[in-house]
């Protein structure tokens, strides 16, 4: 039965290739969209992970960085430093702003970090200075490459011309990347009083960041203190919540298109072989057996289409960053399992229509009709 299903399916290789291509591309739509989001998510918390802070202190109620604004009186940094268990504090300024380079705008997370700060400065500097000097900025290599600029060139950031002092790696996503300027430059550009965005805290050896965070919240007043893990988790949740609706809409569109292509493919394959099915029925093969053949065909088309779609998405994840380093694609196991499970359901649904055709076949009539 299995061999008959395969023989029937691959008898016409062009048709089979086109079918698998159609199904594969429809599933690629779903996998690709998921991979773009997973890629963005994989780098979402890169600054939080690399900054070296055990605890992040922000304005009360502010638990995230992306699309968020936190304003704290500068004096909070000193208050936090005096709390038992705190070894080091670094005040930073932050905004989600725009860098203009070579006439093009790039959304960036800009951090203003004090010179020589033990926490929060640039990490993985691939070129140039390890931290920005006055009037300087350190940007991500992907933005520099995309804009065609290098160390020593000028960009507009925080409303003023700044010289690119260094390049970091691995902070860029489709939406943003991380840049660093001097704290004083940021404060002057912000233009309003003694305000900071976050206080980065390093706890003393042996101290629990969770405990220190709770003590900071209790003692510093009107602040939210989170461990690095809590802050990163809130950040991931924000992007998940923001993208959940759009992802479900896109996935539905991709799955429905995929289903239509699979139904069409299996239907065409079945109808093209109706004589053979007629002969099988005349020989006494029951409808159930024929349904199994159709389902195996649908299943094989979907599985091979899925492998093709996966291969194509993997190829895109290698090729696209060659042309645009800002797009990072990452295929998550969860996304792959979800697409695989839904694909099998699609195969089952796709087999229903041709199966009905087979049930209605009259052996003699079909042989007579040819």
């Amino acid at each position: 039965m299995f061999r008959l299903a395969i023989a029937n399916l691959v008898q016409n290789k062009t048709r089979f290739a086109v079918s698998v291509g159609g199904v594969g591309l429809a599933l690629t739509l779903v996998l690709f969209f998921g991979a773009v989001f997973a890629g963005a998510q994989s780098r979402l918390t890169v600054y939080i992970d690399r900054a070296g802070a055990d605890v992040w202190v922000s304005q009360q109620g502010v638990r995230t960085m992306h699309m968020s604004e936190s304003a704290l009186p500068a004096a909070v940094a000193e208050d936090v430093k005096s709390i038992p268990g705190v070894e080091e504090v670094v005040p930073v300024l932050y905004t989600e702003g725009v860098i203009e380079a070579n006439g093009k705008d790039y959304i960036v997370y800009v951090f203003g970090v004090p010179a020589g700060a033990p926490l929060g400065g640039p990490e993985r500097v691939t070129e140039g200075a390890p931290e920005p000097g006055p009037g300087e900025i350190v940007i991500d290599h992907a933005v520099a490459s995309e804009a065609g600029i290098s160390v020593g060139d000028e960009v507009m950031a925080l409303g003023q011309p700044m010289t690119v002092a260094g390049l970091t790696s691995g902070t860029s996503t489709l939406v943003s990347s991380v840049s660093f300027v001097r704290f004083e430059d940021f404060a002057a550009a912000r233009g309003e009083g003694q305000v900071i965005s976050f206080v980065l805290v390093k706890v003393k050896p042996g101290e629990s960041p969770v405990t220190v965070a709770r003590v900071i919240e209790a003692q510093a007043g009107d602040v939210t203190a989170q461990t690095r893990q809590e802050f990163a988790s809130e950040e991931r949740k924000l992007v998940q919540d923001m993208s959940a609706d759009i992802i479900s809409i896109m996935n539905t569109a991709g799955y429905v298109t995929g289903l239509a292509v699979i139904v069409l493919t299996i239907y065409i394959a079945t109808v093209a072989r109706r004589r053979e099915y007629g002969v099988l029925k005349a020989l006494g093969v029951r409808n159930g057996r024929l349904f199994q053949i159709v389902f195996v065909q649908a299943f094989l088309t979907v599985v091979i289409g899925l492998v093709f779609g996966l291969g194509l998405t993997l190829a895109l994840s290698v090729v696209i960053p060659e042309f645009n380093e800002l797009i990072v694609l990452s295929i998550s196991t969860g996304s792959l399992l979800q697409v695989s499970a839904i694909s099998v359901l699609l195969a089952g649904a796709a087999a229903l229509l041709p199966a009905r055709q087979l049930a209605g076949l009259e052996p003699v009539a079909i042989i007579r009709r040819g």
Partner: protein
Amino acid sequence: MNLAIQNLLQDKVRFALSVVAIALAVMLILFLLGMREGVLRTSVIYLDHAPGSVAVLPQGVKSTSAGSGQFLSPETAEAVADVPGAERVTPVLLVMAIPELHGSKQVIRLVGYDDALGGGPWDMAKGREPLADDEIVLDRVLANKHGYRVGDPFEVAGRSLKIVGLSNQTSTFSGSFVFARKTLVESVALAPGSASVILVTPEPGTTTAELISALSAVPGTNVLPKREVMENDRQVVAGIFDQVIFLMVAAAFIVGALVVGLVIYAATIERRGEYGILKAIGARNGMLYRVVILQAALAAGLGALAGIGFAFAMGELVMNIKPQFLVAIQPSAVTLTIAAGFVMALLGAMIPARAVAGMAPAEVFRR
């Protein structure tokens, strides 16, 4: 023509399925383009409704899409108000906040405005505008989604505020607008008297260009026509969305072309006997190509028409289920999609055309 239609309609279920599959590919293209247009439109919905034709931004800032981290100082706001030719000056302070509502994080943009100067909600669904520093107007879609009503408390940035009104047209794909008195937002941002943008309306007799020229003398500012700022805002959002959307449109386009190819190929192979006879009696390949292309064009044409209908239906469905999304299908996108449908047909016809060309009359009969 007759041969093409007969060939295509010989199996009506297959033909219907093929039209549906092409329609879905076309729908996907049109829907994605409609989503993109909706996202771009809603990205400027506030500025579009705010007063004034000139925008005064902090130095070097061109857009309000991303936070600039910069504010216009109270002195700058005063200097702008004193510039001759300005009839109405509307300072606005914009701050992002992410409250967690029913376990889900919601992006909101707090708009701080002075009700005497404008810049507040333009279409109130219920209630009134805020009169005190603990009052807000919440977006109606956000309120409905989370069951908030006028009079309910709402927490932002660690403050408990009271909802005094609900506004229409203030929901976007990326979040919702929440309106408050400017003094409240100043206290949240720790930026007393500051503004993110000052919108200026010229006096009668003063042109926008004259006003921009006069305002440009105020230090620490970047003065632009409001339309230009809106275009910059759209560009920032387009920069994020376009690469992904266009790759998905390309994939949907190829799916459509493959479906056309598959259907016409199946129809052609099934009728290879007839094609063999035509070739044997002297029909040239050119004539057979025309038959194949005509079939492809018919399938793609019908598929494209149905796809346009599907796209509008899906747009309506999505906007009903998820009111924060605007799906705006433009006539230009419809034209583009119809053209894409026919290009799909031509590309799809290449596979069966090759099959027809490669057919040897005698061989067909032998098989």
